[in-house]
């Protein structure tokens, strides 16, 4: 404290960048030497011991074993490798990763270091060193370990700029997508903007209520190849403002739920402050550019596109430029990262709000509920005037991050002024995956003003699946095999899994298969396989029955009636393909019927006797109305036969051909089956319940519900040409309609199954007819994102698929119970277990890993070795091309068999890789040896070391998201003597009046605010060429430089890796992590 400035300069030589690099390279992140230390500051029990920072990041007291004076490099290496000597000490801190460092007190110009460790940073150790160079060694080692992250998978969140942005550096900026759209955003003054008043304002989305300067206006949106988006005035093309998409996280670009604006083609873009707080990412830098920069309270926009397909294209394009949320280790290859798919559906069934106090008791209160996350409402139920509102709404979410809390707010509609919140339910990530909520559950609602007062209950239901997905490269091989593999064999496996594992849901399995085969262009074959499979089992029974002289009519009568993979897949596919067709063909008439609201009841028992007696012709009138409606609907269906999407028609065509093989000549069965698909599963559900398909906003009232029920009954019977009879005699009068349209129906069925040429003209304008502007865009799109048509998340689906195949594989090789638990383990239901615990996971996985390892063959190496992964990445594009070109059109049976086998093996390898990665990412982070030797990385790291006014050290992984004002670079490049770091160690600043010249970091960096929280990294300021390199690129750079012939070394290395892996799983099993430390980078 009382050291003078002169003194300091004599005793404390400046700490330079070279010192830092040299220390790390020399000591490999370790330290050993005499340190005076104490645990708590107050008792002041200082003792001097020989402390060691080991190569595993532990702080050890090795007082008795070595003499610090005689320490040199040779001794260092011997102590670390020699177990006997290192075990002689005791461990003071097991893991220094993510420790906090603070310099507090100066004695003889050498600062005292406060070391914070442990999960919440509660443990504290104070250290003093006598020698300046020794202190710098200690400081370097501590900083080094502090830059690594503690255990917990979600600690390893890495936020790098999207690959799409990097590709573009240096090239000319091009316009990628242009679209006329409506924008909800700040209104620019003194520009001739036409404000649109008739669009609903998205009040629910914005916190700020002072929205006068905001509004909807038409604009021309232009997305450019550098990741900025311009909004131009539509009439003269002048620029209104631009935004920088690369500043947003992928989670900050969101497709808005239909319920919010009664439109399904809106996107939300903007900074979500509470999301960023959750990730400890600064919100200081917004994404608006130009004069609006940092001038808005809410940096948010809503874009409303003219068509759904525009919205889909833009959604993918914008997301491609935003920052992806990935989980990876420092300097690991990009193919070794994981992304989270956190999918959940929240169903809100009904609520009981009878205890709600009403302001105006005479008025009938109206309620709705909101689902909100990160301070924004993302979905809304309709308003219902009842104290027991029945909503039955379901909202889907697909997040790439953990969600800390979701709120369901019950709102009371107030005639004037703001709607009042009457109750609130909080849902946490842990609750999402809780099986209790998978079924309808009544949850108490509490008053917002008084959290102990229950105002009622709400009945909710949550379906959630969480998965980790590998980067696309990993799936290239799988896709290649998938394109040839035998589908009947795969179908066998899928059916087998469903039979054995009752916890699997038919719907999910069907949809996984549908998506995987649709994206890999084998859907037609898949359907053919399913149809033939289901028909063949039926065929057997029919054969047996006819042999025994029994009738099989009951079999024919229940053909394709139940729920099977085939019918489920078909339902889903038809609706996906045909949704727009349905809406445009019969949507309008359904809305007309609902608006009309007149009863079409023809069941005398459902009409009150009074009405019947006063108006004897009522049934006749109702029947007339019913027949008019049904005729109209039928006419619309009949006349648009050529508009029915070609995918559906070709499906029906091959379906009919398969049926004809089995039920040759039995025309009525064939008709029944076709109608059982097309009408029972496609037309009738929509007619019966248009609300479910979002054709209407509100649930139907009893009268219209009944009308639509009668209509769909009539249409169903027409489709199977079944006359009404004994079942419901009052329907018999409708039979004349069925008889009158019999020939039309047969013609229709012949047309849609391509039996007869369809000369009817196309009458609907469907979006499928519009070609998408893909040409320029495709190179820019991130492969990882959902395939843009129907927004299917391809790699997620393929991940689900490999689990499925792997389960099948395990069932067929039921050697041990342990193998079965792999599949269970992998379907990560309890996502929260990854939040903290690594230990329990370690044990489980280690066991499985060991067993599973023995099954692996030479193909492993192609997946497992880090080096080989690198190789895969480099050949990424090549691989893909090869995959497409070499697609064998007519593979021989041998090839098919081979591919099928390989497919199964590949999926078990991918499962294994996923599991390994999950395990490694859940553990503490350890440096790789390559990195320890690499000066470029060390220089990069050194530039990321910052300190605060109170001399706390922060390591900010390179990123572009924040610009901390109060942080100073340790090795400041803006100073003349830039490699020296004098300021931190300047004791004069200890007084508190610590003035820093203009050395504020000009780049935008992130700050780790708390040891237990995530912190992020990304690309830093473009002006610094080195820091622009990501750690990934650096490691690749090193690799390419150091080993010229990667290919030649492949085999050798891979063998090594395999052995290491094996050894690793062993040692982990023995709970000694030591030798497994560098598993992924070892040579």
């Amino acid at each position, binding site marked *: 404290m009382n050291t003078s400035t002169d003194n300091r300069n004599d005793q404390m030589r400046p700490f330079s960048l070279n010192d830092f690099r040299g220390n790390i390279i020399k000591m490999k992140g370790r330290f050993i030497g005499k340190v005076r230390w104490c645990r708590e500051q107050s008792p002041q029990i200082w003792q001097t011991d020989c402390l060691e920072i080991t190569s595993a990041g532990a702080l050890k007291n090795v007082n008795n074993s070595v003499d610090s004076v005689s320490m040199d490099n040779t001794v260092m290496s011997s102590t670390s490798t020699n177990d006997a000597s290192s075990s002689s000490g005791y461990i003071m801190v097991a893991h220094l990763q993510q420790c906090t460092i603070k310099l507090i007190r100066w004695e003889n110009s050498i600062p005292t270091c406060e070391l914070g460790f442990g999960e919440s940073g509660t443990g504290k150790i104070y250290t003093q060193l006598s020698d300046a160079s020794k202190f710098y060694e200690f400081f370097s080692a501590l900083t080094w370990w502090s830059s690594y992250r503690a255990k917990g998978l979600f600690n390893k969140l890495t936020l790098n700029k999207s690959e799409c942005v990097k590709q573009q550096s240096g090239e000319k900026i091009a316009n990628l997508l242009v679209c006329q759209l409506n924008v909800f955003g700040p209104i620019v003054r003194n520009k001739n903007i036409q404000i649109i008043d008739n669009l609903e304002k998205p009040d629910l989305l914005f916190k700020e209520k002072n929205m006068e300067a905001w509004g909807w206006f038409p604009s021309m949106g232009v997305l450019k190849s550098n990741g900025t988006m311009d909004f131009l005035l539509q009439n003269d093309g002048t620029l209104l403002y631009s935004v920088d998409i690369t500043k947003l996280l992928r989670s900050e670009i969101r497709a808005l739920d239909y319920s919010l604006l009664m439109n399904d083609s809106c996107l939300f873009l903007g900074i979500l402050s509470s999301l960023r707080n959750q990730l400890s990412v600064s919100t200081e830098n917004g994404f608006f550019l130009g004069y609006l920069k940092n001038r808005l309270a809410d940096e948010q926009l809503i874009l409303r596109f003219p068509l759904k397909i525009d919205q889909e294209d833009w959604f993918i394009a914008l997301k491609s430029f935003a920052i992806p949320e990935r989980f990876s280790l420092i300097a690991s290859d990009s193919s070794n990262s994981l992304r989270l798919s956190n999918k959940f559906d929240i169903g809100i069934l009904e609520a009981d709000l009878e205890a709600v106090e009403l302001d105006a008791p005479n008025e009938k209160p109206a309620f709705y509920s909101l689902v909100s996350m990160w301070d924004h409402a993302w979905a809304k139920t309709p308003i219902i005037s009842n104290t027991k509102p029945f909503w039955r709404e379901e909202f889907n979410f697909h997040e790439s991050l953990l969600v800390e809390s979701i709120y369901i707010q019950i709102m009371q509609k107030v005639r004037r002024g703001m709607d009042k919140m009457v109750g609130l339910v909080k849902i946490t990530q842990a609750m999402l995956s809780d099986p209790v909520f998978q079924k309808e559950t009544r949850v108490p609602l509490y008053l917002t003003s008084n959290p102990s007062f229950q105002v009622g209950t709400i009945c909710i239901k949550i379906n959630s699946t969480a998965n980790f997905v590998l980067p696309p490269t990993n799936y290239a091989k799988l896709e290649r095999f998938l394109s040839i593999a035998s589908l009947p064999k795969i179908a066998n496996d899928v059916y087998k899994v469903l039979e054995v594992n009752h916890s699997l849901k038919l719907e999910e399995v069907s949809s996984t298969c549908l998506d995987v085969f649709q994206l890999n262009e084998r859907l037609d074959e898949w359907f053919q396989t399913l149809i033939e499979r289901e028909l063949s089992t039926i065929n057997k029974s029919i054969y047996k029955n006819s042999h025994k002289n029994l009738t099989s009519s009951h079999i024919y009568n229940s053909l394709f009636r139940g729920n099977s993979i085939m019918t489920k897949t078909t339902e889903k596919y038809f609706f996906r393909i045909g949704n727009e067709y349905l809406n445009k063909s019969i949507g309008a008439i359904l809305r007309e019927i609902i608006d009309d609201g007149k009863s079409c009841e023809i069941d005398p*028992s459902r009409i009150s006797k009074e009405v019947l007696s006063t108006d004897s012709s009522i049934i006749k009138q109702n029947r007339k109305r019913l027949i008019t409606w049904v005729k109209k609907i039928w006419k619309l269906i009949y006349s648009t036969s050529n508009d029915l999407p070609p995918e559906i028609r070709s499906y029906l065509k091959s379906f009919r051909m398969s049926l004809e093989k089995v039920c040759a000549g039995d025309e009525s069965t064939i008709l029944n089956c076709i109608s059982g698909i097309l009408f029972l599963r496609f037309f009738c559900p929509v007619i019966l319940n248009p609300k479910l398909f979002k054709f209407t906003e509100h649930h139907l009232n009893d009268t219209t519900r009944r009308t639509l029920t009668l209509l*769909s009954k009539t249409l169903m019977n027409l489709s*199977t040409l079944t006359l009404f009879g004994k079942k419901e005699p009052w329907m018999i009068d409708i039979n004349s309609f069925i008889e009158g349209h019999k020939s039309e129906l047969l013609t229709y069925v012949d047309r849609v199954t391509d039996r007869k040429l369809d000369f009817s003209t196309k009458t609907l304008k469907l979006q499928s007819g519009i070609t998408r502007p893909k040409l320029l865009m495709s190179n820019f799109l991130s492969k990882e994102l959902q395939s843009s048509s129907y927004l299917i998340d391809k790699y997620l689906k393929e991940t689900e698929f490999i689990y499925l195949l792997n389960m099948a594989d395990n069932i067929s090789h039921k050697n041990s119970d342990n193998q079965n638990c792999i599949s269970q383990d992998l379907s990560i239901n309890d996502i929260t277990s990854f939040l903290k615990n690594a230990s329990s996971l370690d044990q489980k996985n280690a066991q499985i890993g060991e067993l599973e390892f023995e099954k692996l063959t030479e193909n492993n190496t192609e997946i497992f070795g880090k080096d080989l992964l690198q190789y895969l990445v480099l050949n990424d594009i090549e691989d893909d091309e090869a995959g497409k070109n070499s697609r064998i059109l007519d593979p021989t049976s041998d090839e098919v068999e081979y591919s099928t086998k390989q497919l199964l093996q590949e999926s078990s390898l991918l499962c294994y890789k996923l599991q390994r990665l999950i395990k490694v990412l859940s553990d503490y982070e350890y440096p790789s040896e390559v990195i320890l030797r690499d000066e470029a990385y060390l220089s990069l790291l050194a530039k990321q070391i910052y300190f605060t006014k109170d001399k706390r050290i922060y390591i900010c992984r390179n990123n572009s998201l924040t610009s901390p004002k109060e942080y100073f670079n340790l090795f400041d490049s803006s100073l003349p003597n830039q490699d020296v770091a004098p300021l931190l160690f300047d004791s004069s600043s200890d007084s508190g009046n610590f003035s820093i010249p203009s050395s504020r970091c000009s780049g935008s960096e992130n700050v780790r605010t708390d040891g237990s929280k995530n912190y992020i990294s990304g690309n830093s300021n473009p002006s610094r060429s080195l820091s622009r390199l990501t750690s990934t690129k650096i490691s690749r750079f090193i690799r390419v430089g150091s080993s010229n012939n990667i290919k030649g070394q492949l085999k050798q290395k891979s063998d090594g890796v395999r052995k290491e892996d094996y050894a690793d799983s062993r040692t982990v099993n023995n709970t000694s992590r030591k030798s497994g430390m560098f598993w992924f980078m070892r040579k």
Partner: protein
Amino acid sequence: MRDYKLVVLGAGGVGKSCLTVQFVQGVYLDTYDPTIEDSYRKTIEIDNKVFDLEILDTAGVAQFTAMRELYIKSGMGFLLVYSVTDQRSLDELMELREQVLRIKDSDKVPMVLVGNKADLTDERVISVEDGIEISSKWGKVPFYETSALLRSNVDEVFVDVVRQIIRNEMENVVKSDARNQSTKSSPSTSVGPNGNIASTENSKKSSPTTDKPRSKPLNTSRRPTETVKTTLPKRSTNSPGKSSSPVSSKQKKKKKRNLCVIF
């Protein structure tokens, strides 16, 4: 006359309509006629009391299940039907039952578990024991195997549900009576004693009602599965599928007793 709403639930093609129409009209349906939503009325007499039943026959196809919550809300008793020839149809019931209990917000909802198509011995994949196991897992929900074709156990399943509704209602009356009494006698006492009174009253009053409807099934001792299977006439081309003459159905009624599998 009491009005009861029954709902028939189950997967597609398990024979819900066949069962219902057989019960209501004594007719066996033999057509490809997927149900969208049919409703029937029938008046029956149980223990000398007349009941008016409204039976809702629902669609099995999943696309229509969005209506299920509404059906369940309005229904008082439920028939959960599967087909003994289709494992999936039984699996689907698990979820359905759960949904009924959750939406009704009660552990005691009148329901029966019905394994239909029991006559199809060759195609059977779910044994009687499997059904029994499920029923006991569900807290001894009454379980029957039925054949809509042979009209065996058809009336029984519907009557059983109605009896459960009656019993439920009586218990509720008893409970509310007990509550009223206790509030009159000791208005200051808390929930504890009230609950006690209710439960004792319950067991006293409900025991006769539980015994009475159960007496018939309990007396027919459950027979081994072999007997069940052998007594079943096989479905054949000659089998009078469409016959609905009262004589033949009465004859079958006598036979069906052997088929009874009840708790």
